[in-house]
């Protein structure tokens, strides 16, 4: 808001016409938008939750699930005459397996506690007994690796020669899957809180009522809220993707324009949903609960942290109809696979329907006072 350099004037008693200046058609909208952005800029918590939090989340999860140099398994060999020799046989064939020789009690205890994935014991007749936990994938893996190594070291010949290629290219790692999901979740969170909570806060403070007591156009107010969301969305998308590219050498294969357009539709869709959630709520306590109720299923089902393919097939149509699923799928398709805008048509329609219907219902039910 510009500071106008006007000469100081005082009002004399009896002066009936104070100096005025005309306002343009969009003056109200622009001031509302500027006020909204200024308020947000001056609220450090908002900056953290909108920008800092998703980046920290990406960083933490990216480090936790970074691609380790092939998972190693750990086996214990019960101390005995041939223990040393057995250990050498295994490590000679597969050096990645970590082998330790220990007493029987300690070995079985270690297996129970997850310290060892497998315990190997001589049966005293030249053979071996495996102790393992078939419900633990690393235990099963260790069983098969150790058995392979032992059999091969004892002279087994594989009837079919095979070879493997390890895949840890950018684009196929967990962090690549994660970042578009976090972006989608963040667009949802920011829109629901920014619009839903923002409106109820203003309603509780009677500021909405004060606004409608002026000639302010109500559509300008809603438009300014939505526009502030779009401005922030551009920053959010840029920051999170930029972070992925710089910190994790993520490869953005799709066009930035397509990604941005998906972001716009996503932000508007959740903006509409936020508006509907806030249409009637009078207290910030009730809107906080409502927002969480609306978002909770999508955190779980919409494939933010893991693929929704894990859920039973019967749920899939419902999951795919959720707006966050559509947004995440569209973001992953464009960012990771370079999918074109046309390929996102179905998902964009889902987002537009959610946003549009919510917006219309919100306008119908909206309470200004």
């Amino acid at each position, binding site marked *: *808001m510009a*500071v*106008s350099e*006007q000469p*100081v*004037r*005082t*009002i004399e*008693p*009896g*002066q*009936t016409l*104070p*100096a*005025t*200046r*005309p*306002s343009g058609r969009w*003056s*109200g909208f*622009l*001031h*509302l938008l500027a*006020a909204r952005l*200024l*308020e947000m800029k*001056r*609220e450090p918590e908002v900056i953290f939750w909108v920008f800092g939090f998703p980046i920290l989340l990406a960083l933490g999860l990216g480090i936790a699930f970074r691609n380790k140099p092939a998972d190693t398994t750990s086996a214990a060999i019960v101390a005995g005459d041939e223990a040393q020799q057995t250990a050498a046989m295994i490590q000679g064939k597969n050096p990645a397996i970590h082998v330790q020789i220990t007493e029987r009690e300690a070995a079985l205890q270690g297996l129970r506690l997850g310290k060892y994935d497998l315990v190997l014991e001589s049966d005293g007749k030249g053979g071996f007994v495996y102790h393992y936990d078939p419900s633990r994938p690393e235990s099963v893996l260790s069983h098969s690796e150790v058995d392979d190594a032992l059999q091969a070291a004892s002279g087994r010949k594989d009837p079919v020669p095979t070879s493997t290629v390890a895949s840890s290219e950018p684009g196929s790692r967990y962090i690549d899957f994660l970042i578009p999901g976090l972006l989608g979740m963040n667009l949802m969170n920011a829109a629901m809180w920014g619009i839903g909570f923002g409106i109820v806060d203003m309603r509780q*403070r*009677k*500021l909405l*009522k*004060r*606004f*409608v*007591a*002026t*000639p*302010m156009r109500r559509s300008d107010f809603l438009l300014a809220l939505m526009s502030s969301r779009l401005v922030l969305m551009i920053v959010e998308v840029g920051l999170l993707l930029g972070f992925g590219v710089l910190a994790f050498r993520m490869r953005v294969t799709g066009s930035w324009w397509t990604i941005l357009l998906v972001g716009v539709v996503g932000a508007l869709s959740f903006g509409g949903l936020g508006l509907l959630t806030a249409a009637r709520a009078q207290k910030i306590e009730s809107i906080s609960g409502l927002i969480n109720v609306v978002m909770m299923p999508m955190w779980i089902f919409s494939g933010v942290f893991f693929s929704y393919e894990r859920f039973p097939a019967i749920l899939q149509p419902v999951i795919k109809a959720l707006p966050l699923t559509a947004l995440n799928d569209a973001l992953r398709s464009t960012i990771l696979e370079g999918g074109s805008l046309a390929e996102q048509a179905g998902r964009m329609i889902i987002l537009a329907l959610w946003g549009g219907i919510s917006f219309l219902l919100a306008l119908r039910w909206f309470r200004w*006072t």
Partner: protein
Amino acid sequence: MATVIECRNLRKTYDGKVEAVRGLNLEIAAGECFGLLGPNGAGKTTTIEILEGLLAPTSGEVTILGHKWHSHERELREQLGISLQETRLSEKLTVRETIELFASFYQEPRLSDEALDQLQLREKADSWVGKLSGGQKQRLAVATALVGNPKILFLDEPTTGLDPQSRRQLWDLVRSFQQGGGTVLLTTHYMDEAERLCDRLAIVDHGQIIAEGSPAELIDRLGGHHVVEFSVSGTSNGTAQEVWRALPGVEGVREDADIVSLTVREPHLTIPPLLDAVERQEKELLHLTTRQASLEDVFVRLTGRHLRED
């Protein structure tokens, strides 16, 4: 003078049972400062919000500047300045940003510097609203109402909770707006505010107007301009009241927790016979004061209750 605010037979019933306003008529002329005086819960805020077009009446008619709300809302909004009871403006905006924001809603707003000067907020122009004192916040609230250059100013409890100096500053503001030709409608439960600021007022109780006129007229209707208050030893009884009423110049008698209030025309004619009467009853005078009659006395006379039941 032209009538700028008019309402007829205004009623508002909440949820079909709570009757907040029960048949209220008002006619306010251009250039007047009109007050709605009454205790909390009398229906003042409901009434003013109906007149402001923020609340729909259950029945009755409202005409503002010759227009109805449903047909001329936008035109009316351009010409009214409204300050609600308890609006919390955004704390993280500066005073100037807040005024500019409100100015931007009007087609022909005033210069914000001018509004800042008039409201004595220029020094605070770049402070965040959250840092202002209660009086400054209230002045800012009025500034946001004045920045649209309104013809009518609505103020709902403008000085509730303010210190005496801030109250006087606000009263000065209202007067200067009125001197510029503006019309003011305010609600208050402070009788001194109503008495000093309003040209005319309506005393509201239980959603109805129980008296209307200038402060002086209303006090005149008490019959006397002075109040003699006293208390005597021993318990009072009905016969004592007859004695007080029979004293010369007494227009009204009221007893409230052992304190007797006499409304009188001329205290010097009433007090000597009063002292004689106390002596004749062989009672002791514990306390005696005289003062000018106020709107509080009018309210007590009309309702038997005090304006502020603390």
